């Protein structure tokens, strides 16, 4: 799926996606959004909606992004305000310089990530420009989101560039954020403000200074000699 021989993935379709994305980058889709957590400014890419769409894709929950993609649960998943803010902060540090050049708006960080995945979201489904969210990516169903990443992972134009690293980092860092403490963490005081949602998903006992876990030494060997 998604290779150069895939009828869905053609140069023509890519160029169409680029055009659509240019519109997306200008915030045109914000006019259609109904459920966006954070409405973007007219000239800015819809970063928060995109990031929430990514978090919901990687760790679905009971949020609007998960429900819209058709894969949701009855619990809080990855798409929380705090996790999204943290992930944006991470992306801003991961790529502080413009990644996409003029065609991508010379955007750095989370804005570049948003532009990138939205560009390919429109490529996968031009209809994603219209939907409940400002971000085309967030308007896709789960399968289509997966196809976006397959296209990104196989995009020959990225070969030998840092974009291959960035593309891989998007879902990886999203997974890390969703299961970390950031959904219930005060970064200034560096203390929990509640039980992180990701910990609940993983039934994690939480951090500790130690456990009564010592079970002796394997086959009674507690030291070895030459």
């Amino acid at each position: 799926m998604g290779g150069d021989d895939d009828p869905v993935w053609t140069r023509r379709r890519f160029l169409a996606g680029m055009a659509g994305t240019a519109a997306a980058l200008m915030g045109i889709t914000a006019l259609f959004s109904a459920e966006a957590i954070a409405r973007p400014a007219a000239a800015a890419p819809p970063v928060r909606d995109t990031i929430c769409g990514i978090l919901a894709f990687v760790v679905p929950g009971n949020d609007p992004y998960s429900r819209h993609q058709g894969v949701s649960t009855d619990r809080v998943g990855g798409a929380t305000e705090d996790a999204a803010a943290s992930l944006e902060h991470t992306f801003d540090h991961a790529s502080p310089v413009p990644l996409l050049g003029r065609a991508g708006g010379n955007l750095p960080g989370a804005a570049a990530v948003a532009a990138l995945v939205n560009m390919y979201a429109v490529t996968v489904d031009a209809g994603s420009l219209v939907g409940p969210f400002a971000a085309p990516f967030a308007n896709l169903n789960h399968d289509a989101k997966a196809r976006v990443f397959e296209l990104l992972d196989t995009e020959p134009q990225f070969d030998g560039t840092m974009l291959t690293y960035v593309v891989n980092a998007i879902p990886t860092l999203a997974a890390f954020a969703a299961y970390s403490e950031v959904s219930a963490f005060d970064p200034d005081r560096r203390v929990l403000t509640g039980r992180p949602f990701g910990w609940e998903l993983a039934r994690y006992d939480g951090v500790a200074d130690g456990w009564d876990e010592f079970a002796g030494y394997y086959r009674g060997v507690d030291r070895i000699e030459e």
Partner: protein
Amino acid sequence: MRDVIVIGSGGGGPVVAKELAARGLDVLVVEAGPRFADPENEWTHFEDDANNPLTGFFRQGPGDRSRTPWLRDLPQNSYVWQVAGVGGTTLHYFGNSPRAVPGVFVGYDGADRNMYDTDHLFPFGYDELRRYYEWVEATLPVQTAPMGTKERIFLRGAAALGLPHQTTHDTTVASHRAQQNAVLQPGGTAGRTRDPQRLRHPEARGCTMCGHCYQGCYLPAGAPRNLKAKRSTDNSYVPMMLTAEAWSPHGRAATLVTDATVTQVLTEDVHGETTARGVRFRTLDGEEHEERAQVVVLAAGAIESPRLWLASDLPNPNDWVGRGLTDHHMDAVFGVFDEDTGQTRGAGSNARVDLPGYGGIEQVGMPPALQAYSLAFSDSGIHGYGRAGGVVDDAGADTLGRLVGRDLLATLDDANRTLAALVITDDDVEPGNRVTRSTMLLPDEGGLAPKVTMRHRRRSERTRRNREYCTRKAVELMRAAGARSVHRCDWPPLILHAQSSMRMGTSGNDSVLDATGEARWVKRLFVADNSALANSLGGPNPTLTTQALATRTSEAIFRTYFGGDAWVGREDPVSSVDDRVTAAVIAQGL
């Protein structure tokens, strides 16, 4: 003029500094990152706070976390996971301290001698390094790891594969064992209680089995710095180098300067030979400094050392500076079990399988965010949706690739019902895998950023064979241990073990260092970090061997340029937990 300047205070630099400070030399250590002087108050166990690769307190970047990290240009799907600061990448390491396999040294004549990277052997025999291993193992100290739940399950699987139990330091046949770790064994209440009030030193001693090796070791609470459980160099060699006058009869404390980036190795021509004469470095206030020394030791790590060499315009006649980077071509295999695995409890890795000629497998324990990171990191695309051009199969696992959505939720439904195995491949030195300098990223304090190229889908045939062999074994191990399902991640290069990019070797055609660790083309310049390794050691974790080699290099420096005698094998090593070190650490508020 100093006697010796050491650039970097990670796994190797403090070893040289401690050894030469113990001989009474005037040693300056310059570290680009911060020093965490009060980790009990500066660190937390929270994964994002600690390990967010871009914003955590353990990252490759300045101590001020509001500032941009020191990025690397990675022109492929990959990540280089290192830590800047005093302790370097040992701050988040697991303390695993196996010796290299004998087959990667010259002179090895075992029946399996052709199984290794025979084109890039160490330029001396394994027996030559043995006494340095023993010295470092006594100094750290290295001890046999205890068992917890995850180790019991992992070793149950290993034993079921028919692998014998190894009870020696030297690895000669395929086997399984508890790790030899640079982690103090649990004592007192450590490992016997979860009550934090009863886990303070000295009631608790050694590893409290908290499950947070990767977030840095500051336990047991209240313990002097040199008695913290994990022997990362900030807890072992650094306290020793800073207190050398207290425990060595002729010792002289080393000087440590942090938050100071070396921008150039200074050289001059001496009798027609390029000769190191000092360093130039920049401190946080932007001020430039120069220090001169009789000997300079490059120990900034396998990425930064070649970068600094290139930035300094030092000679590179065979073009091998930065080449030959090895990383153990890692992969990860996860099992999901119906029983409690204790995956988030206990030390990071207390059990291993060695497969000489192929590599090995380690049990690794992680809290949930790092498990999620591991499961979502792949070179094979999103499981069930595509392959992203991936070049491997599932190696017998039930699933392959990046887990997202319901697959990730199901696998991580209980962070204590997974078991993770890290595949560490005996990978080949290949010239195309290398460190250069980037013209894409903005320069940082050190100048042009490093560019790390790993041709991971085009590794040598032997490397690919070895990785598949070890991964398949890991899958078999999980099933033998009772896993309900098994997943293969197929990691792209997750460069946790960066090695051999300034390698020593038998031939001047494909190495940077001679057999003593001295640069072939710059006199009085030595390299003493993972980059000095001749190869990937056959798969074992690199830190112990780097430290043994750095000890050997220290002797070479002392003999060659200071007229001294060797000491390893002639004197008894002082342990980093020795009472004299402890008293000095307390007295100096370290």
